[in-house]
């Protein structure tokens, strides 16, 4: 391989990222070989998949080219629930070395499994993720993703160790301790959810710690959608370069895709996870460049292969070359999920649109919450926004004007009139993990 290509735009030498620079033809060769193997494996060991293939009159031989993937049946989240806990495993428990589970917001969680090889692939893609974010041996990484059933903590941990960085396994929560570690351990990189980091910046400021004065250089954020404006806020307030990473437990955890120094889309580690975009309504594949739902196939997963898993995340594939030199295709940053969509009085509203409106007016993102209720059969949407020092005034008129501007901006972007309520600071619950932005009290 051309070793000079291993130097990514961040200036680090990362032999770990060699597969990121495979020529297209070579990459597709690897993808096809792995696709055929994983389809064969799922067909042989996962009854649900075999049944669906049989119903379509297909056998694994149907895969003669990468394009043939479109013939295969989809897998959806409810398949994991319906086969809870172990129904989609393709390996005997004797080969499974790890289980993780996602916290379902309703009912049973979903359970995912890893063989020794799966754990190694996971460490590799997370090492490539950190390398793409400009980390290397010698970096001190504070891992504030939750350790436990959630894939974030351990996924990031093994990846950073594989890269040769020093990992501090702080896990999530306990913000005071996070700040102490940040200050005292010479931490150069931190990973957590973006909303938790915003909370951490806020808390640090309250206790008189300016993150910009610390050695902290890189923030690696994932597990929830966040906007470019939020990135600008984080980069300015914490003096870091803030990278977006993407992953989901059903596929592997974090490590499916990562931004690089160019920060213009996330490179999919497509030698392991094959991306497609489909129209979420018709389920038809869409060409690169067109927005739709991301569908992923795990090309090398052993314990729990996922064939054409519908992520519900809305994005598009960027196939143009990237400034960093990686040949892996990119996906545009995910701003919304098809199941995040709120349908209110016939209008589709995404929390990210409300966030964009609030940012536009305030310049920074205030804490907010969307509350849906139903009064006499009619859906009502209220947006509660915490008053910040930036907008607070001693004059009623000025505050009423802020309230009106916020409501107008939301109406302008979302096309819906909301009941905008200014609320006292710190009255909206802070998450130590993913932010809970929508409270639906409609009991539909």
């Amino acid at each position: 391989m051309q070793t000079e290509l291993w130097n990514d735009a961040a200036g680090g030498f990362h032999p770990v990222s060699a597969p990121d620079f495979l020529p297209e033809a070579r990459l597709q060769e690897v993808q096809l070989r792995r696709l055929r193997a994983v389809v064969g494996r799922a067909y042989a060991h996962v009854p649900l998949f075999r049944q669906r293939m049989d119903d379509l009159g297909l056998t694994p031989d149907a895969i003669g080219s990468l394009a043939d993937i479109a013939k295969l049946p989809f897998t959806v989240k409810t398949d994991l629930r319906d086969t809870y806990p172990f129904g989609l495993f393709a390996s005997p428990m004797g080969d499974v070395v790890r289980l993780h589970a996602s916290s379902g917001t309703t009912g049973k969680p979903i359970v995912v499994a890893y063989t020794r090889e799966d754990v190694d692939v996971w460490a590799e893609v997370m090492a490539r993720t950190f390398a793409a974010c400009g980390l290397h041996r010698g970096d001190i990484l504070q891992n504030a993703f939750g350790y436990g059933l959630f894939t974030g903590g351990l996924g990031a941990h093994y990846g950073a160790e594989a890269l040769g960085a020093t990992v501090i396994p702080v896990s999530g929560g306990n913000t005071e301790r996070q700040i102490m570690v940040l200050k005292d351990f010479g931490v150069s990189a931190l990973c957590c959810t973006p909303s938790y980091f915003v909370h951490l910046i806020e808390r640090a400021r309250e206790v008189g710690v300016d993150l910009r004065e610390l050695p902290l250089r890189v923030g690696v954020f994932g597990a929830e959608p966040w906007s470019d404006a939020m990135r600008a806020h984080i980069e300015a307030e914490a003096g870091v370069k803030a990278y977006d990473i993407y992953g989901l437990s059903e596929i592997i955890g974090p490590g499916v895709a990562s931004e690089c120094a160019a920060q213009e889309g996330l490179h999919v580690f497509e030698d392991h996870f094959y991306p497609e975009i489909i129209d979420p309504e018709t389920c038809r594949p869409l060409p690169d460049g067109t927005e739709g739902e991301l569908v992923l196939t795990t090309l090398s997963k052993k314990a729990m292969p996922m064939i054409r898993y519908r992520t519900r995340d809305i994005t598009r594939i960027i196939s143009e070359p990237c400034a960093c030199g990686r040949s892996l295709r990119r996906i545009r940053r995910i701003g919304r999920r098809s199941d995040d969509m709120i349908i209110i009085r016939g209008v589709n509203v995404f929390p990210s649109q409300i966030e964009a409106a609030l940012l536009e007016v305030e310049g920074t993102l205030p804490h907010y919450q969307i509350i849906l209720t139903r009064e006499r059969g009619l859906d009502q949407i209220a947006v509660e926004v915490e008053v910040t020092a930036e907008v607070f005034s001693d004059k009623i008129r000025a505050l009423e004007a802020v309230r009106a501007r916020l409501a107008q901006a939301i109406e302008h972007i979302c096309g819906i009139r909301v009941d905008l309520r200014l609320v006292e600071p710190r009255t909206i619950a802070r998450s130590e993990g993913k932010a809970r932005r929508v409270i639906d009290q409609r009991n539909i």
Partner: protein
Amino acid sequence: MKLQQLSLFLENRPGRLGAPLEAIAAEGINLMTLSLADTAQFGILRLIVREWERAKQVLEHAGWVVNLTEVVAVDVPDRPGGLAEVLRVLESAGLNIEYMYAFSLRRGDKAILIFRFEDPDPAIDVLKTAGLHVVDAEELFSHFP
């Protein structure tokens, strides 16, 4: 000649007024006066406190967003039409009053008007030129234990 006024945001629901007042009382900080302006949805509590720096710190530490504004205190002339006279002076000088509130000192029967101007300095000049008594912090708090 100007006073520091602290303002904080309150939601308009029962019991919200008590909390900030208790927070500063718990620190032994005496309140000179307060004024509450509200709408159906929210209110703004404005406080005049001698130890405003400490009060601001206490309130911010407890999580409130505190705004610091300079206001002007005027001693209302103790004669019929005294209040109207102050307002007339300001109006004829074309000074815009953002808001105002009145209170009386505990000792004596002095009435004090607090004015919030966009720009307090020209207003102070106008008031003084008209022979009105602008009360500074030291004098105001001397009436107050």
